[in-house]
């Protein structure tokens, strides 16, 4: 056996004195003890300690031991021996109590949840299905984008004044975000029985509505398109009358192109370009321009948010300048590269879209 240093030898010395070493190891320890005085002293201390511990005398049971043990056996279930309770019945009771408390907590939680959920459901006037989106953006940003698109779709397409009508909305966004070629297709279906008379039923009503719109100064093709749109969407006669009475506010529809909306012919958003843009000072695509038609000069406000919903910049376009964003925040510091959301607010209408800032 290789010679070991004294530190490693210590346990072996103990087990040598303990007589639990195999003969080869025992021989190696004996050899080491012959040459190392420190370890010999160490071993002697162990021997003395062993001797003393082993000298503690044995005891025998007292004459009353047996009788007392029998008495304890008869007084089962065993209760206080050292002053603590060891009854199994008490243990069961504690477990049962804990289980009851847990159960009560679960019941209260479920009841509470049930009370809250109907309120939430009534808030949602129209159920909307999630839209499958295939964009090359991070997952978090993608989810936010989808949520924003859904909320926009609900706000714009679905008129809240349609009573007793279920409208199913399916929005699909496909294509590449960078190329800005994706489109949103709105399919509005009337599913349940419509209790009110719809525009489809009367051609006269349709003609009258078109005529009324023309009378109010709306061009004929726009008036015809507005009424056709109402027919496609299955609007009621009352709703159509509302549109006719107030054409500028109510004839809002989502156009075929994503992010592009019309408010009659009053305001028309075209695009935000170039997207992506590169504000790096090379005079190439340094700004993103928001292009829209605003013949009546209604107030427009553009807000830029990052994907954590933090407001980055507020842009209020003036008549003589093209609204644009140069990638800076309100403190004129250049923002980090990434995905941003623009919110274009025109009176009560909100138009949203995404911007990619690349450096």
């Amino acid at each position, binding site marked *: 056996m290789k010679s070991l240093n004294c530190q490693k030898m210590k346990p072996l010395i103990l087990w040598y004195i303990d007589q639990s070493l195999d003969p080869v190891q025992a021989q190696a320890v004996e050899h080491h003890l012959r040459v190392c005085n420190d370890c010999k002293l160490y071993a002697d201390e162990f021997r003395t300690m062993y001797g003393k*511990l082993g000298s503690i005398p044995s005891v025998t049971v007292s004459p009353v*031991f047996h009788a007392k043990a029998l008495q304890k056996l008869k007084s089962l279930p065993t209760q206080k021996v050292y002053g603590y309770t060891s009854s199994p019945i008490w243990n069961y009771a504690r477990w049962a109590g804990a289980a009851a408390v847990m159960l009560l907590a679960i019941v209260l939680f479920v009841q509470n949840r049930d009370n809250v959920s109907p309120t939430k459901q009534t808030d949602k006037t129209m159920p909307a299905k999630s839209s499958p989106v295939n964009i090359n953006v991070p997952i978090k940003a993608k989810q936010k984008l989808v949520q924003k698109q859904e909320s926009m779709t609900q706000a714009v397409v679905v008129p809240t004044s349609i009573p007793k009508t279920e409208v199913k909305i399916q929005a699909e966004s496909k294509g590449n975000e960078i190329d800005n070629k994706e489109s949103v297709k709105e399919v509005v279906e009337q599913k349940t029985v419509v209790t009110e008379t719809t525009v489809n039923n009367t051609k006269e009503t349709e003609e009258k509505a078109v005529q009324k719109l023309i009378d109010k100064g709306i061009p004929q093709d726009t008036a015809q398109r507005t009424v056709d749109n109402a027919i496609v969407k299955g609007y009621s006669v009352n709703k159509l009358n509302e549109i006719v009475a107030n054409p500028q506010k109510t004839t809002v529809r989502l156009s075929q192109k994503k992010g592009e909306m019309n408010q009659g012919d009053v305001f028309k958003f075209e695009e935000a370009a170039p997207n992506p843009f590169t504000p790096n000072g090379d005079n190439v695509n340094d700004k993103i321009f928001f292009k829209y038609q605003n013949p009546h000069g209604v107030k427009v406000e553009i807000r830029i948010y990052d994907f954590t919903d933090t407001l980055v910049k507020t842009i209020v376009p003036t008549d003589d300048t093209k609204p644009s964003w140069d990638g800076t925040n309100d403190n004129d510091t250049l923002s980090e590269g990434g995905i941003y959301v623009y919110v274009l607010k025109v009176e009560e209408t909100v138009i949203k879209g995404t911007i990619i800032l690349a450096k």
Partner: protein
Amino acid sequence: MVDTQNIVSFDELAEKHGNQILNLAYRLTGHYADAEDIAQEVLVKAFKNYAQFKQGTNLSAWLYKITINVYRDYRRYNTRRKTAAHVSLDEVNSNGQVQVPLANDTGNSEQILENEQQNKMLMQTLNKLETKHKVVVVLRVMEHKSYEEISEILGCPVGTVKSRMFYACETLRKMMKKSGNI
């Protein structure tokens, strides 16, 4: 309560194993009255749960296991009460209330007194060890159990037992050296 196939008489259990259990409890506690209490409870528990004992296995090891579990409860209870297990070898005799019936009670009175004093010091030192270390020392040095038997009683590997043994002995050696006992 007791399986008919595993019937054992309480008297038989107490007769055969009473002293063995009492000795282990006494060496663990250093207090005769507490050791008797522990031994009685061990016998009651063993009798009550005798059906759980696997026939053909080591009954002695099973009883040792129960004794150690009861001792753990006892020590925990005493620690909670802040009255650490008191060593009463000297105390009991000097008060004359309980005479500890020693198995090998021989020699003159002076020698006995000196031994008792020494034993008291030893038990006090031993009591400073953690339960898991103390149990190993008692089983190995005082009860002369092999490491394999200790491993079976404690339900842990032999290596763990040996490691605990070394740690406990090293701690004890240092404490005894410090107090001038070795």
